[in-house]
């Protein structure tokens, strides 16, 4: 077991495209939960419709990539309205139930046999990234970066664009939350009734933020489709949402850079524990574990992390503890 190479690989993944994509999706979740207190347990559903918006437009209808992005965003808008209209007037837990159920049902429908002409069923879609790689200023065969932190040209391009989008979104979130609109949003998190008594239409504000966060999530899904050049429905399982929650809580909910820091720390931790476990496994320390068990143990570890974080350090790395002591009304 080479601890240095495990550390290096973990660091590489902390800056890699996947971390950037998760950071983007977590920014959407931060808008929902961190600033507004909406319990969205189905962020992966937004990512899925975004990714399939790109996938179906590009692979099935041969449309340009930008149209694919637009279709993905549109789907996310529709999904947010569909989820929000029945639940946002009700208590927070109804949104939680509806989102977690809807995300999984969408996945089941997209992978179903009758949808195969459009979605490719369980096999998914491929050849999605050509339109994106044409624009690549980096050379696909070269490696870029320093030391352990090097990526090939294609990944470098995805990485640059996605981290760029993360930066833009962080700026956007900062500006929004320092605007009068943002103050109302945070007010809803603190005390919905008080905001309502000031004559604000709480439902409309919640709807706006649900749509906005969903759009950011869908953008992350689009980038995922572009990064992998192929998508399968089974990569949008519910645990993706839970990863996003850990990312948000680890970084600090209600902070502009919380999701970014959280995504980096989370993927570092995931790869580090995975490398460590497998390293110990290959030294024969766990004779009772098979190959696939390591993944399961990791997911159990994510669950424990979620519990421990929310109970003992709800503010995460850079959050404000007082802001996080909110309650469902």
């Amino acid at each position, binding site marked *: 077991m080479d601890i240095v190479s495990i*550390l290096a690989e973990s660091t590489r993944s902390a800056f890699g495209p996947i971390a950037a994509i998760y950071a983007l999706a977590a920014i959407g979740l931060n808008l929902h939960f961190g600033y507004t207190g909406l319990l969205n347990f189905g962020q992966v559903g937004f990512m899925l419709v975004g990714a399939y918006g790109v996938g179906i437009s590009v692979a099935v209808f041969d449309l340009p990539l930008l149209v694919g992005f637009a279709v993905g965003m549109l789907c996310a808008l529709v999904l947010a309205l569909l989820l929000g209209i029945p639940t946002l007037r009700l208590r927070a837990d109804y949104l939680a139930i509806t989102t977690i159920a809807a995300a999984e049902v969408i996945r089941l429908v997209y992978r179903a046999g009758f949808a195969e002409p459009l979605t490719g069923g369980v096999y998914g879609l491929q050849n999605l990234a050509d339109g994106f790689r044409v624009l690549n200023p980096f050379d696909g065969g070269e490696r870029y970066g320093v030391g352990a932190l090097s990526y090939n040209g294609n990944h470098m391009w995805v990485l640059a664009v996605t981290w760029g989008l993360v930066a833009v979104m962080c700026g956007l979130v900062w500006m929004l939350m320092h605007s009068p609109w943002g103050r109302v949003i945070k007010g809803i998190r603190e005390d919905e009734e008080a905001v309502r008594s000031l004559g604000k239409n709480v439902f409309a504000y919640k709807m706006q933020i649900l749509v906005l966060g969903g759009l950011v999530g869908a953008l992350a899904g689009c980038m995922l489709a572009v990064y992998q050049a192929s998508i399968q429905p089974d990569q949008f399982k519910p645990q993706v949402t839970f990863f996003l929650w850990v990312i948000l809580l680890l970084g600090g909910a209600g902070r502009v850079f919380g999701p970014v820091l959280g995504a980096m720390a989370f993927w570092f931790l995931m790869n580090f524990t995975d490398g460590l476990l497998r390293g110990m496994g290959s030294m024969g320390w766990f004779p009772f574990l098979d190959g696939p068990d390591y993944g399961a143990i990791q997911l159990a570890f994510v669950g424990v992390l979620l519990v421990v974080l929310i109970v003992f350090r709800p503010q995460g790395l850079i959050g404000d503890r007082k802001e996080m002591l909110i309650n469902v009304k």
Partner: protein
Amino acid sequence: MRTRLVTVLLALITAILVIPGPAATADEQGGESLHGRILNPQDRDQGVEGILLTVFEGGDEIAAAETGPDGNWEAELPGPGEYRVVVDQESIPSEFALRESVIVVDGEATAEVEAGDQRPLIIALDVAGAADEDSPSPSGEGADGSDGGDAPADDDSVETGADSGGSFGDRFAQLTASGLLYGLVIAVSAIGLSLIFGTTKMINFAHGDMVTFGAMIALLFSTGAAGMGNSLLAIFLGLAGAVLLGGFFEDRLPRATLVVAQWSAILLGIVLATVLGVMGDSVGWQVPLWGAAVIAVLMGGVLGAGMERYIWRPLRHRNVALIQMFIVSIGLALVVRHVVLVLFGAGRERYAGYQIQDPVDLGPIALPPRDLVVMGVAVVVLVGVACLLQFTRIGKAMRAVSDNRDLAESSGIDVDRVTLYVWGLGGGLAALGGVLYGLNQIVEYEMGFRLLLLMFAAVILGGLGTAYGAMVGGLAVGLVAMLSTLWFPTQMMQAWALALMILMLLVRPQGLLGRRERVG
């Protein structure tokens, strides 16, 4: 505190950045490769083993691969370029044939691999002679058809019976019967969810995984429990001892004695578990399925009560906010699901000996005896729970706490104890639901999560927090889900249940039996 953490993190990252050396080699291991998974067209969650693939570059053979037990294959490539993958038609089992598509022509596929790319290549199989696809597939597993575990309760006999039955009336009757069956199973599992919400105002997202737990435990003990089964039993005995001690002697013994007694019970359980685990297969034993079901229900009850006693009660006493509790329960769900996965594996199994049964004809419908038994058990349990809630002291207390926690507490009900009983009852019922569900379904580690979606629909339909609402809602959701397959594909079943739930939220958010003030 905050700055210190950030500093440590930053220091760590900078430290790694300045280490070049061996890291670079580790980095290169991800060279170019092609990979994919060949799935069984009759059951898309399973792969086909032993299919040979050869990769050519121009005319040269450069790599070969064979699919593993789960259908996965991978071929390492020397570098970027254009490759031709040829599937050995001889190695495909005779009941399947290669599916021709844009990518796969005449058993050959071309793939362009860029530098550093690990490209997936989709190769799909069809059932041989796909032209007459409508003909009933061969008996046994084949009839499980459409989409494996995702089309719940598309029970072999029920499905084929419904398809070949011909007339609409017959299919309607048959599907109503299976919908009723499905609904009863949902109702049994969902009562606990609703009662737990009623008493603690918390949605237990781990409830689905408690269902899986029950199904798995019953599978374990009915197929023969050796080392692992005995160890699990010992741990749960210890936990049960601790919870029961706490329940009965809370105010009668000095606190210190109680704590010592509880911890020694748990430790004793762990020690016993280790001993039994080491002894392994030498103390193997097996019970029939009904016996295993009883064990599963008891262990499910202990799991529920243990969670309440050692996780939820301390959290409530710390005044942890409800939103945080939801997230904790999501985390617990992940933990339970994947611990079950590690312990029992990702295999998909069925309860042996209950699969092939001659259906009993009852007028227009035909049901195998096991379905009749499942229905009977579910009805008896539902009536039993209703009687418990209606006529016994603890049942009345449960309804009182569910109605108004503060009022119940001020009228002298020991709310903590009632909550403990509710969790025990809920866990036991969830485990029973898992066993009943498993009789009609494939037992695997995600089955409970799928059922959870329907349970949510059921409790919202009936009214969150009301036990009777969960029963009514469960039946309605089961019927709607099953009857929708008359007109729509089976995979849409859950979508219809969800649609029903959303419709209910729009029209009457408090549910059929809920009171208006609840929703606020």
